[in-house]
């Protein structure tokens, strides 16, 4: 089969690889009909995340048709159309039973590797380094899906791929970002990052009862999508001082909750930006936390900072004094997608939201390397690329 393989930083190849096979009896093999590129894939593309091997298949947002099921998969049959959540969860460990699916205790066979870096291991993830399991990803024609009896959601007829594909990652992730804010009536939420996650976070914040949502980015086309499709109030941080603007917009109080939907490759012009980039280049700092620092300083006293942007290692100059002295709550995590699959599918089916709005480009799997470059450089007003393997 064809698959998009990581061969090195900024070096992707779509190559012919063997077809996947059943390895555990709760596996299923899925023929992939649509797969997307995630912002976190760009961290792999740029070489910022350790433990990648040349030849690793990328991709963790995918859906398709079941073509083979292991003997223990009783709830899916060949021909079923499914969307596959990006974290791999067994359903029987304590964390899964508590609803913390991205912390599954059994799905990372390389748990010892993640423990060395992070203390304990989170769940395994498709196509996202050997630290998180070494699972082949979904930017391919087929994928092996472990715990297929627990993870994938079966999709009924009447929905296009683009309407449901984002249940795999970006929609539940944006929703969880807003969910973690514990939104109360009258709340103002500020969202850093108007990529797909940020956009879904904005829509979700309104769904969860926010009164106002302010969106922060530097690309006018993304701010325009946030304003037009998500009803956010846009702020361009290259044109205004965000901290002052937020104070003014909220009567001097600050937003009640701040969502960091940017993560470790935050962009910041000027000296501070060069400081973080410089330290990252000589490996003294693995992540660039500019959006996070700003979100913490901007948040009102006693508010919540919801960190959904991906970080991989260590950051520098963290405003811990602000956090402690102003009673801030920081909530974070890889999305517990399984928790949100059914509720969000219901919202889609009920017409509350059509996730298709974020798709700006549809390309074939063969064009994956060009797609990554375009997505990385924000060319052609790119927000979300969907790849078609067949």
């Amino acid at each position, binding site marked *: 089969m064809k698959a998009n393989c990581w061969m090195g930083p900024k070096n992707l190849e779509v190559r012919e690889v063997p077809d996947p096979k059943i390895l555990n009896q*709760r596996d299923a093999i899925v023929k992939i009909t649509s797969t997307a590129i995630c912002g976190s894939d760009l961290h792999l593309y740029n070489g910022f995340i350790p433990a990648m091997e040349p030849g690793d298949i990328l991709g963790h947002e995918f859906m398709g048709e079941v073509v083979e099921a292991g003997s223990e998969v009783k709830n899916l049959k060949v021909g079923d159309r499914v969307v596959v959540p990006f974290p791999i969860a067994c359903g029987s460990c304590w964390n899964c039973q508590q609803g913390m699916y991205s912390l599954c205790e059994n799905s990372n066979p390389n748990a010892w590797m993640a423990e060395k870096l992070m203390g304990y291991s989170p769940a395994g993830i498709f196509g996202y380094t050997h630290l998180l399991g070494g699972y082949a990803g979904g930017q391919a024609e087929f994928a092996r899906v472990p*715990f297929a009896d627990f993870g994938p959601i079966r999709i009924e007829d009447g929905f296009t791929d683009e309407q449901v594909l984002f249940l795999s990652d970006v929609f539940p992730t944006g929703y969880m970002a807003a969910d973690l804010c514990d939104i109360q009536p009258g709340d103002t939420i500020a969202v850093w990052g108007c990529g797909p996650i940020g956009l879904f976070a904005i829509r979700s914040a309104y769904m969860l009862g926010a009164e106002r949502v302010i969106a922060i980015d530097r690309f006018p086309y993304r701010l325009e999508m946030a304003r037009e499709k998500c009803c956010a109030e846009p702020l361009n941080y290259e044109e205004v001082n965000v901290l002052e603007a937020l104070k003014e917009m909220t009567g001097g109080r600050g937003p009640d909750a701040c969502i960091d939907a940017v993560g470790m490759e935050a962009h910041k012009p000027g000296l501070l930006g060069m400081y973080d980039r410089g330290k990252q280049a000589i490996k003294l700092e693995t992540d660039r936390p500019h959006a996070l620092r700003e979100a913490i300083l901007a948040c009102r006293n006693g508010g919540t900072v919801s960190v959904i942007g991906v970080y991989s290692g260590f950051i520098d100059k963290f405003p811990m004094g602000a956090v402690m002295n102003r009673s801030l709550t920081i909530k974070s995590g890889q999305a517990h997608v399984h928790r949100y699959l059914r509720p969000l599918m219901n919202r889609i089916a009920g017409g509350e939201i059509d996730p298709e709005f974020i798709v700006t480009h549809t390309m074939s799997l063969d064009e994956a390397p060009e797609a990554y470059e375009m997505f990385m450089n924000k060319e052609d007003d790119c927000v979300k690329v969907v790849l078609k393997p067949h």
Partner: protein
Amino acid sequence: MWNQGRSRLARGLGWFSIGLGLVEIVAPGRTARWIGVPKSRNLLRFFGMREIASGVILLLHHKPGEAAWLRVAGDAVDLSFLGASHLSRSTDKYRLGIATATVGAVTALDITSALVLSHRDRGRIVRTHTITINRPVEDVYRFWSNFENFSRFMSHVESIRITGEKRSHWTVRAPAGRTVEWEAEITEDRENEKIAWRSLKGADIDNSGQVEFFPAPGGRGTEVRVRIEYYPPGGALGAALAGLLGEEPGTQLKGDLYRLKQVMETGEVVHSDASIHMGLHPASPPPESFWNPQSRYTH
């Protein structure tokens, strides 16, 4: 503490010390006259207490080698005392001579024992690991008591044969394609609480271990605490080298317990496209040749 791995040598020395000490405390006067120092009965009581202390430490301390050196120190004190006693006029030189020669011989024996036991200490590796499994204690205990289950999660076990009511024969893969074997027996088996075992004489690698089961708080299942001890061929250096190859029993123990948890909670050992290979491999499905019967499906 009452370590079934404690050698007979350590135990023998320990009880010998206690016995000798008791004699010195209970009959100091007679002992003093007997070794030729009739005026030193009070001193002999102190020596007796010291002997008993050495004996107790030899029996209880987790590093018998260190305790054995205590005996050597005591012997040095004894020799100095006896040597000084030669100069006194009130001692029986003949008896003293014999006593000094005897203590000299015992000292040589003690030094040899201390060297042997210390070498054993240094060579001994202890590994422990704890894991929580989301199943009731009875289920986990029952699973562990059935040796046939071990190959499901112990990656280096090639085979286990039951050879008796409490006995089994193990064949285990070692670095560089070799195998090691031993006969093991269960030394303790408390239902739903503890199982302990040790290898018998003639084992390729001396080893012993125990597993304890505790209910985890808050209904989280069972805490499994495992402790293994072994004497690696090649000593501590050999163990370090094996560790670099990823073959050290301590690392294996951790991996085995993770796999035990996977089997008990999900039904199978969990595989990824990379983890089914030994060593590094890209996260990509393996080629057809991987599925041939000859190729080693290691986990």
